[in-house]
């Protein structure tokens, strides 16, 4: 097997919490002991509830925040050890797409300036070819190149997200991390952008890490899925296996919570425990209906690939309640997408 493009080893990040007097009162364990590898050309989805640390993990992958422990190897280099100028140069190969397209574009830069910035920073094309390359990138994401000299405030959310995608593509990165790239968009626009992303991943051979809580989108786009709970990965495996035959009780509960699901599964009880003082043992035991004495004491480790799970009851868990073979939303989403899938670049609609 070839070397993975991105390899995370025992990564941990804690954010200190201070009391009213500014003393350290503890820490939020946002990411705690995550090991993960992403192979070149694959699409990995990271799913979990809000607050489970998936966005933090995404930023750790790009070393936008530095981990407290562990290593991030990108194409062989440990990003945490690179000098700041070497890291900046490395950023050419890894890009981030943000959740909120209304916040991720500099309000004082035209579309052209925003998309051309990575071209300039990393000297991708000479200045004379810049304009042509920007036009090329814009049409690639389905925007008319004539819109290049407009400002972000003149665009809709979906269009802005397309601009952000064009900017992320500009430096011809090997890895793109999408932090909930469609969840801030309207449903109809979501489908368009998901289509665009999956087309780009296929055509450009991108390695893509998709952070999402929308299992319908994840099923549509991902090769592999990692399920996170309270800063740890609880299940990791090929997308079809994890989504159709989940091994971890938490994954089952997540799937059961997808609206429109055929059978009403009992919802999991209670809230996510505080990440400031996560429960000992298996972190899910406070809400798990199958929890045993061992779960309250010992933290389960991930089993071996390809379909890994961190659960003491692995193999002994009662089979999940029978459920329809399709994931709710999957077929409907596909049908919805077929409406919006356009053959070529779509004209952006000026406001």
């Amino acid at each position, binding site marked *: 097997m070839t070397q993975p493009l991105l390899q995370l080893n025992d990564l941990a990040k804690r954010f200190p919490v201070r009391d009213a007097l500014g003393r350290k009162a503890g820490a939020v364990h946002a990411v705690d002991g995550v090991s993960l590898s992403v192979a070149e050309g694959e699409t990995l989805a990271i799913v979990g509830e809000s607050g489970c640390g998936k966005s933090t993990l995404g930023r750790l992958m790009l070393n936008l925040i530095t981990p407290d422990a562990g290593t991030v190897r990108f194409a062989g280099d440990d990003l945490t050890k690179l000098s700041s100028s070497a890291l900046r140069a490395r950023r050419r190969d890894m890009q*981030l797409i943000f959740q909120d397209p209304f916040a991720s574009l500099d309000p004082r830069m035209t579309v052209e300036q925003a998309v051309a910035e990575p071209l300039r920073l990393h000297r991708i094309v000479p200045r004379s070819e810049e304009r042509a390359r920007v036009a090329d990138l814009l049409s690639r994401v389905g925007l008319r190149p004539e819109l290049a000299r407009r400002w972000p405030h003149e665009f809709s959310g979906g269009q802005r997200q397309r601009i952000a995608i064009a900017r992320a593509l500009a430096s011809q990165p090997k890895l793109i991390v999408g932090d909930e790239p469609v969840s801030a968009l309207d449903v109809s626009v979501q489908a368009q952008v998901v289509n665009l992303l999956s087309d780009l991943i296929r055509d450009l051979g991108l390695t893509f890490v998709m952070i999402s809580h929308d299992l319908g989108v994840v099923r549509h786009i991902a090769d592999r899925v990692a399920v996170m709970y309270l800063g740890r990965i609880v299940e990791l495996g090929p997308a079809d296996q994890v989504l159709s035959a989940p091994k971890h009780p938490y994954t089952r509960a997540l799937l059961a919570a997808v609206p429109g699901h055929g059978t009403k599964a009992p919802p999991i009880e209670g809230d996510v425990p505080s990440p400031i003082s996560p429960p000992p043992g298996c972190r899910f035991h406070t809400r798990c209906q199958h929890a045993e004495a061992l779960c309250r004491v010992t933290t389960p480790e991930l089993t071996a690939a390809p379909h890994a799970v961190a659960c003491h009851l692995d193999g002994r868990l009662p089979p999940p309640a029978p459920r329809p073979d399709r994931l709710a939303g999957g077929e409907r989403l596909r049908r919805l997408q077929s409406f919006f899938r356009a053959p070529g670049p779509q004209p952006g609609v000026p406001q």
Partner: protein
Amino acid sequence: MSATAIPIGESPTRRAVKRFLRHRLAVFGLIIVVAFILVAIFAPLIAPYDPLQTSWTRIRRPPSWAHWMGTDENGRDVLSRVIWGARASMMAGVVSVLGAMILGVPLGLLAGLAGGWVDAVISRIADAMLSVPFLILAIALAAFLGPALENAMLAIAITASPVFARLSRGMALEAKSTDWVEAARALGNPAWRIAFVHVLPNIIPPLLVQATLAIAEAIIAEAALSFLGLGMQPPNPSWGSMLNSSQRFLTQAPWLSIFPGVTIMVVVLAFNLMGDGLRDALDPRAEKT
């Protein structure tokens, strides 16, 4: 709008200009400011007399057709001196505020974006300077540097800079937490480029508002320093020094005090009106829609 004709987009700056032009009082202020700037530039052409030309035959004459603002205790034409005085005041206002910005804004950006002990040191120095009244500090600095217009401007620039440092630090802190600054980092921008290419253009609006208001303050400060003899040196005309020399004749020749005094008031008022209009036009809350 039809989908075929796509005009070049409307920049945030152009939208702000449009909003500013709808603000009548602000435009009125702008006109007065521009008028005074033109007067300052073309003073040699406009002034009817030589502002330094004394004459023992027409001492302290009241306003007349020959001398619209009268003559002073040395027989010099007050109108010509007010016109030439505009040079000192405008220069002092604009140059010292520019100096204050050049000094304060980069330090504020550095404090806001770097954080940690850098921020602590810069912020404490700014706080210390702000805890002393503006004029007192300016007077102390000017007295230390020696009486000259250049030194007065330098003193005003130093005294006004902490306001800009603190303002830009706050705005930089706010910008630092936004996605677009993180995006700039993720794209591989070096720190200086984030500060000057991304953050600075976004914090120009509040700086511009602060600058117009600071110019008004600086003009008053220059007048005060000149009044105390720390600014423009006699016999060269400046509104502050004219007020100083006229105070002895307040009852016999009030026009000597009234005209420079009213001029200062009008200019400062114009700058303040303009600043208020700018603030409304550049309001970030209006920017979003």
